[in-house]
């Protein structure tokens, strides 16, 4: 699937700022984040804990608890409309229909006292002009689409009768029930075992093929990114630091954090004697470093003043490749991974 960069984006997050009040003062979890996703494409949003990747998605869905949360700035344009100005009732109509979501923990996302089938059908009844019988029929069909065996029988069962992988598939079925144009999947396979993960990837692929929905895939797993994404947004310390297509990101990253992250991963079929970690730890949002949040851990900064004093802006360093590093040009020829 190639990024369909023609035409207007389906979703455009523009300079979004999301803050939380805490005992230690106001914390800016998302700091002027911008990204776009076009119809049918899979955009991976990558980052470690505290990078703001999930808070951005929750902001898009209008699910930031207020208080203590607050959207302090920016726009979230979905099909041209700013979701931040849409009345709550209308937002509820969009959420679950045009935009749906899949969360990490399949156990807490399902109601334990209702059958799985009822919950999928309910998602359709809440939004659609569908009769109960039709919704039930389509729910069974959806379960079959995402690879649940004996779908008709499974329809009648309760969540506790489903294994973790089956529950996650039921949630995927629910997420695509109303043929959404955008699915936001937050760490959809993190809680699952490797062989079950592979099953859920397949279910996600089938679901996307069935609906042609665009997908925002929030993850920390670079393997998953390489397997599923068309384009990638890398976040660090509440900001976007790099964005480009998936191949360029892996082969010619232009931000020191992305490069450090890729270099630190152990690889199954490369047995280097020693890993190359990023020194230090991800920043605390309460006490974010000045200038570029990555500078205390950056091998490239080497104490240079702009890294400590100026927040680097996102710049298009090559066509369709943006990096927020003052010295992105110095990273140009470092394509060691391609040659390796």
């Amino acid at each position, binding site marked *: 699937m190639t990024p369909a960069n023609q035409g207007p984006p389906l979703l455009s997050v523009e300079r979004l700022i999301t803050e939380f009040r805490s005992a230690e003062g106001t914390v800016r979890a998302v700091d002027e984040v911008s990204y776009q996703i076009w119809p049918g494409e899979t955009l991976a949003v990558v980052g470690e804990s505290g990078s703001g990747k999930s808070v951005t998605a929750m902001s898009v869905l209008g699910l930031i608890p207020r208080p203590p949360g607050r959207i302090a700035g920016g726009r979230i344009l979905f099909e041209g409309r700013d979701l931040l100005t849409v009345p709550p009732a209308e937002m509820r109509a969009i959420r679950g229909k045009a935009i749906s979501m899949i969360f990490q923990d399949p156990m807490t996302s399902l109601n334990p006292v209702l059958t799985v089938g009822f919950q999928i059908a309910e998602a359709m009844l809440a939004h659609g002009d569908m009769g109960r019988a039709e919704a039930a029929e389509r729910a069974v069909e959806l379960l079959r689409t995402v690879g649940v065996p004996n779908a008709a029988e499974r329809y009648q069962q309760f969540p506790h009768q489903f294994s973790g992988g089956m529950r996650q598939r039921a949630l995927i079925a629910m997420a695509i029930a109303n043929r959404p144009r955008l699915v936001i999947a937050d760490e959809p396979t993190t809680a699952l075992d490797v062989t079950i993960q*592979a099953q859920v990837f397949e279910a996600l692929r089938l679901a996307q093929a069935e609906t042609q929905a665009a997908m925002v895939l929030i993850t920390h797993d670079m393997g998953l990114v390489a397997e599923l994404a068309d384009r990638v947004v890398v976040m660090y310390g509440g900001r976007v630091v790099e964005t480009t297509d998936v*191949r360029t990101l892996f082969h010619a990253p232009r931000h020191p954090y992305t490069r450090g992250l890729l270099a630190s991963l*152990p690889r199954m079929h490369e047995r280097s004697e020693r890993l190359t970690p990023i020194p230090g730890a991800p920043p605390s949002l309460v006490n974010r470093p000045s200038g570029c949040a990555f500078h205390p851990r950056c091998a490239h900064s080497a104490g240079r003043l702009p890294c400590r004093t100026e927040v680097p802006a996102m710049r298009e360093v090559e066509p369709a490749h943006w990096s927020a590093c003052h010295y992105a040009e110095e990273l140009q020829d470092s394509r060691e991974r391609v040659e390796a």
Partner: protein
Amino acid sequence: MTAGTRAEPLLKIDNLVKHYGVRGGRKPAIQAVNGISLALRAGETLGLVGESGCGKSTTGRCIIGLEQPTGGQIVFDGKPVEHGRRAALTAMWRDMQYVFQDPFASLNPLMTVFAILSEPLRLSGMKAAETQARVAELMRLVGLAPEHGNRFPHEFSGGQRQRIGIARALALNPKLLILDEPVSALDVSIQAQVINLLEDLQDQLGLAYLFIAHDLSVVSHICDRIAVMYLGRIVEVGTREEIFDRPQHPYTQALLSAVPIDDPDLRGRRKRIVLQGDPPSPANPPSGCAFRTRCWKATDICAQAVPALEPKPQARQAVACHHAGALTAEPA
């Protein structure tokens, strides 16, 4: 780093069995570990891999004496592990220590780092002055500043907390560390720091590691030998190269093929085996080979006889499969 000596292994496990809930009798017993045998040499790293519920952590907990095995024998450093005898276990723990997955839950939040690290030293009878010096030495060893000894665990990041857990385990100069998912709770950029630390410590101190993990990339990096578990049994055991380059058991092959590879150029070009269904319940394991319900090679014999873990003519590693062999035909 393979210790090439012919001497007795440091740790030898013979036919270890652990069933839960046997005595009540009303519900079927959970057969967490169903007869596994392993040997670990001094200075070696043995990986124990498998998915949740396969019994890998139960095995670790039986070895260190946190669980009482239902059957089998464990010999550590020439002496049988005496489960249920507190004094004997305490003596053994000088030489064998456990590092837990969660560095948030495994450190007492009310104790300073100094108190956490000095406790084992004090209990072993070390004098106060000596203890001071040893705690400072331990902190330096794991890359922490000794002047931070008066801080509490919450003042450290996840990676630093795991370093404290490792330092505590090293306090009494053990010969074996059981590392139970030691990096899986850490951020990706921090995992490499802790893996490098573990490798450095092994070089410096000659430690043996039993490395329990589900992340195969990490295991392939750090382990000399690897045992793959499925539903309470070892299905394949061999060197890193044997397991990763020439796996012979269908489960190992499926497990390796399921790991996402972080190279977008390989997308769609790799053979991926997507296993059908879920692992069976350890309360009611299938007859014969436990993997047969998800295996594309299964035949009648697989339901009748438990395959023995033994070397095969075509491979040097031990494989428990009636149809062991390299992955050639596409699974159905």
